[in-house]
């Protein structure tokens, strides 16, 4: 599975965590761990504990489940600086939006061409909204 991280194809990177956020919470919440979360998880709890986590992989069961977009946005908003990785049904037609809400890594679906996907970041280069990458309409600067 190809991984794009920080706008580059990544060859060496941490594996996507298998530990689910809920198990991590019940298992002692060790600092520095990486977890797998999705839209069904307890978001206030994730936000409260995020500071301890080195990576949060947000899973898209289906590409149409947009909850992960708000999760990433809220994590970045409160200053989470670790990796937010999109995993699951992740395709090139959404990674630009994903990047703008705060994802910085994308584990692409098997049928995706990673080089082509890389081109999709910034395909629409101007935005009407503020976003995690600091770009926004002129009046918001």
């Amino acid at each position: 599975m190809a991984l794009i991280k920080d706008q580059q194809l990544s060859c060496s990177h941490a594996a996507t965590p298998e530990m689910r956020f809920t198990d991590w919470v019940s298992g002692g919440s060790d600092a520095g761990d990486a977890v797998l979360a999705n839209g069904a998880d307890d978001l206030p709890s994730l936000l409260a504990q995020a500071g301890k986590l080195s990576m949060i992989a947000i899973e898209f069961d289906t590409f149409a489940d947009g909850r992960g977009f708000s999760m990433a946005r809220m994590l970045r908003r409160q200053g989470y600086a670790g990796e937010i990785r999109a995993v699951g049904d992740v395709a090139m037609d959404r990674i630009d939006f994903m990047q703008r809400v705060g994802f910085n890594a994308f584990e692409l679906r098997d049928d995706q061409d990673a080089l082509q996907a890389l081109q999709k970041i910034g395909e629409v280069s101007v935005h009407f909204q503020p976003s995690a990458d600091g770009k926004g309409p002129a009046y918001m600067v």
Partner: protein
Amino acid sequence: MYAYNEFDQTLIDQRVEQYRDQTRRYLAGEIPEEEFRVLRLMNGLYIQRLAPMLRVAIPYGLMKSDQLRMLAQISRTYDKGYGHFTTRQNMQFNWPTLESVPDILADLAKVQMHAIQTSGACIRNTTTDPFAGVSADEIEDTRPWCELIRQWSTLHPEFAYLPRKFKIAVSGSSSDRAASQVHDIGLHLYRNEVGDMGFEVLVGGGLGRTPVIGKTLRKFLEPQELLTYLDAVLRVYNLNGRRDNKYKARIKILVNALGVDAFGAMVEAEWQLIKGQELRLPEAEIERVKGFFKAPDYLSAMHASRDLNDTFAEHPQFAAWYKQNTRDHKQAGYRIIIVALKNQLQAPGDVNHQQMDGIAALADEFSFSELRSTHDQNLVLADVAQRDLFALWLKLQDLGLARANVGTLTDMINCPGLDFCSLANAETLILSRQVNETFDDMDYLYDLGEIQLKISGCINACGHHHVGHIGILGVEKGGKQVYQFTLGGSASNDASLGKTLGRSIEQDQVVVVIGQILDVYVEQRQTDETFLQVIRRVGFAPFKERVYGTHQRSAA
């Protein structure tokens, strides 16, 4: 009206190329069918029964004449020479090919138009009062606020995959002409007791399978915080709206499940985190956008006015048109003109390319080159001097668009139904033809007064039947198309949902039943009582008795 700057233009040009590449990859088999379905819907492209359908956005219904000319040209080049105005003030083309859509979008982009978010589970075209900025009863012009919402909602990265579609309507006058109480969010711009301008925010209204009147979420919202507040509502909905059942996924279901107070508390908690921050609108930005909607160079009242009494006496049809199809303007000497797209020969809301070119020319000649589309599928020339009215009327006659039936029974809202739509269960266009053929006596229609007839071909309610004074819903029963009547709905200030009259009516009996309902109204009404008032006063019994009475007896 708003004009694109380089920023807006870059955005839609790049979006065209993005969609072109998506179409190319789909045709090459590189995007799965289900995924492309979502991508094309976000760009207004449906696959209908007979052909694709492309829905073009007309933000809050406002157009320049050259934009309408481009729609005419597109209808000639890529379609069958006509288009259809929808209840979201947009235009639909019924016959483009999937392959040609990127080229259509490129043509649209040349005149600052697009099809972004005209479908899909995202924030749709914001709609408003078609008389915004000109009507005599206006409190505040809604257009700058609609434009600010348009910008914020366009390609919003966080809210492109919502549980379901999301519709916002804005009203800014004492009469609600935007159906704001049946929208996911309805915004009422008004002045509070101390004279400050702000929004009342309604949430959770809607039609479809579960019709609901919106509830007040916030009594008064400071206008600078409009976008922070909308952002908070959308985020709470995106995270908490149901995704397991598309029929339960609209925000109205969430609001009803939680109760508006609990929902409001969630919004409030989120809003406290973002209020006053980056999305707060700076005064300078509000003023910049307002600058696009300044009043045009009106003639003085003396130059614009004309005493029309002699012309009325000489041309009674012109007098009737003036009475039915024009409205009071806030500028002395001017009228608002409604161009009714409800004639006997075309489906409600349809215009052909000659008419589009013709109306564009009339907008240039008489109304500062601008026009608007309306929620009830008509067009508006918003700024016509009284002295020009007769000349305008003559030219509208040449285009077949001078029918003086605005607000009458034949000024109906009608979805395209089974003739085009793959969701539909029943034909609707045949009903509008029958209504036009049966009720063609204008004096009778004028005597009946205001009656809103709204027809949908399925439960999704694109024809807004729940809020029609007379609503008709097409359903399929045992392989036959039959129609359920509702009475007493309204989408205005006194918004209410119509109630079902009784069992379904066969297609060839629909106009008969409409006639019976009208007869009961005429018999029951007291001086100056409208159709809706009579229904609210006398209830359903006399209507039921007339429509079903004999059948019920014979069945018993």
